[in-house]
Each structure stands twice: as structure tokens, then as C-alpha cells.
């Protein structure tokens, strides 16, 4: 969906501006740090703020404002932030497309398997347990935030590595290289297996009022939606509102049957 791409790349542009502003002298370089604009920063600094009234270093109250916006989206439409507004999601999709191009696929045809070898899918026996890794990351970050001075992910946040233009440590370079490589090898690798914000938001997929529904009478189980799902959800019509769905609506877009998949309120 072209509108979604527009949304995603607008998010990239905004994040790029936030990252680049520190390179300029004067007023533009002042203000909150790069971390202060991160919605996940609110989760990282939550404990500190509740217990002491202060935020962790490099975060401030803006984190809560941005998180509030993201939470509102999630309460209404599930993990739609991941599919429509996350700059890292956009970069991952772009890198997956680049990998397909390098693999020999000139143009992706909807509902058809890619000719390129990469991005590949992990085998089910590895994919299933690894999906829980992001919940573990979330738990570890929350636990670490209790005794932290800086946000626990500050030193190895992929968003900082990609957008902050402040790659001062070897670790950050490592994170950047790993992020780029993993995104080209497996589509949305970070979203599927590592992102703690995605893990936190996924809880709301089951309860959000705006949700996808499948009309079993109209669906002929052709598998087109399975093929175009960037999150690698198998048997999409039966798993529309599971925690992994990022509400990108690619399944709805690729579906050839009228009314087989719909988006509904309530």
C-alpha cells in the first residue's frame, strides 16, 4: 500500500531530522537528546520517574508524550505503530527490498514467491522459540531500568545506530552492521525477534477495537496473504489478530477475493 510506504518514510525523514540536528551549531543543536524522542524511552525511564520523580539521563518528559501517542494508536488499532509509523520498520523493509534486488528480483509481484534467496525465513523450529526473545528483552530492560542511570538500551539501540549519527563506540558500529545484515537476511528480523517496544505493544493486539476479520465463506485459502506477510505469519486468515500482526494491511491489499478480509471496528 503506497500510503503506508509514505507514512513509514515520513517517519524515517522525521527521525533523520531529529538525529541530524545535533550536528548543527546553535539553537537547533540544543534541546532534548535523540533518546528523548523515543517512545520506548518512556518504558525505560518509567520506574525511575515513578519512584524518584526524575527521568534517566538522556530521557525526559517528552518520552512519555511520544509514548502516549504510540499507546493511543495501539489501544485503537493494535500494533499499527510497528506497521505504519516505526522508522526502523521502514528501514528494515527497505533493506529487505534491497536484498531482493541484489538477489535478482527486479520487481516484487504480489502474491507470488520471490525469486531471490534473501530475505529468507527461519525454519519453524527456530522461528517459534525466537519470537519469545523480544519479550525476554523487554523483561530484561525493565529489570535493568530499576538500577540504571542511562536507559538500558542506550549503548546498543539500533535506532541510535541508524539515525543518531553519533557512532562513537565499536559497539554501536557492531549494532549497525548486525541490524543491516539481519534485516537483509530475514525480513523484519528485529521486529520479529528482538524489538522490546513491539513486544510491549503486541499485548494490545487482542483487545484493540479496530481489527482484521476473515470471512471464511469468501476465503479460498490460496495463501497469497501468507506470502506477502512481512512478519511471516502462517495461515493468515486464521491468525489475523495474533500478537505478531503489525496491521500493515498487506494481506488485505494482496487478497484477490472480495470481502474475504476486512477491517472492522468492534
Amino acid at each position: 500500500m503506497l500510503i503506508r510506504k509514505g507514512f513509514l518514510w515520513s517517519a524515517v525523514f522525521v527521525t533523520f531530522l531529529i538525529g541530524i540536528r545535533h550536528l548543527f551549531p546553535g539553537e537547533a543543536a540544543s534541546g532534548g537528546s535523540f533518546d528523548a524522542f523515543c517512545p520506548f524511552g518512556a518504558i525505560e525511564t518509567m520506574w525511575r520517574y515513578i519512584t524518584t520523580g526524575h527521568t534517566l539521563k538522556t530521557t525526559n518528559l517528552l518520552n512519555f508524550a511520544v509514548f502516549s501517542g504510540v499507546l493511543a494508536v495501539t489501544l485503537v488499532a493494535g500494533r499499527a505503530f510497528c506497521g505504519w509509523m516505526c522508522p526502523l520498520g521502514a528501514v528494515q523493509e527497505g533493506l529487505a527490498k534491497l536484498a531482493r534486488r541484489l538477489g535478482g528480483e527486479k520487481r516484487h509481484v504480489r502474491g507470488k514467491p520471490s525469486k531471490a534467496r534473501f530475505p529468507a525465513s527461519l525454519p519453524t523450529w527456530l522461528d517459534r522459540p525466537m519470537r519469545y526473545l523480544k519479550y525476554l528483552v523487554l523483561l530484561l530492560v525493565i529489570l535493568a531500568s530499576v538500577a540504571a542511570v542511562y536507559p538500558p538500551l542506550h549503548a546498543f539501540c539500533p535506532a541510535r545506530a541508524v539515525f543518531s549519527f553519533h557512532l562513537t563506540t565499536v559497539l554501536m558500529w557492531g549494532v549497525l552492521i548486525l541490524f543491516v545484515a539481519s534485516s537483509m537476511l530475514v525480513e523484519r528480523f528485529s521486529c520479529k525477534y528482538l524489538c522490546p517496544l513491539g513486544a510491549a505493544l503486541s499485548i494490545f493486539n487482542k483487545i484493540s477495537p479496530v481489527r482484521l476479520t476473515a470471512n471464511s465463506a469468501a476465503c479460498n485459502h490460496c495463501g497469497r496473504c501468507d506470502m506477502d506477510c512481512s512478519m511471516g505469519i502462517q495461515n493468515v486468515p486464521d491468525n489475523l489478530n495474533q500478537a505478531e500482526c503489525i496491521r500493515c494491511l498487506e494481506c488485505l491489499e494482496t487478497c484477490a477475493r472480495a470481502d474475504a478480509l476486512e477491517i472492522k471496528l468492534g
Partner: protein
Amino acid sequence: MKTSIRIDPYSFPLIIVAAFVMGLILAFMLGFRPQHGSSHGRERPALETAPALVQTVQEGSFYDL
């Protein structure tokens, strides 16, 4: 009986933007605003001051706040 309203997929982005903006405005109204420089003497967020406000209202000592 559970009723559900069908949404045009092209309205979905508008729903997302509206929700995000409303969440952001709500947070700003509660005092979670961007901060610059030192935090000394800055307005405290409404959520932070709310318990103190309730306490002073109960005690009747408004002017101590």
C-alpha cells in the same frame, strides 16, 4: 449480539494519525512536554502535582501549594 462496523482501509491511516495526535495532545495537557536545559524552576507535570493538590484541598491549605 455483537455488532461491528466495517472500515474502509483507506480510512485506517486517518484513524492512526488521529489516535497518535490525540495521545500526544493529552500527554502535553498533562504536563509531559519537551524540556530544554536545566529542570530548575520548571512547571511540574499535572500528574506529578495531582496527589499534592488533592492533599492540600483536603487539608484546606491551598496557599501552601
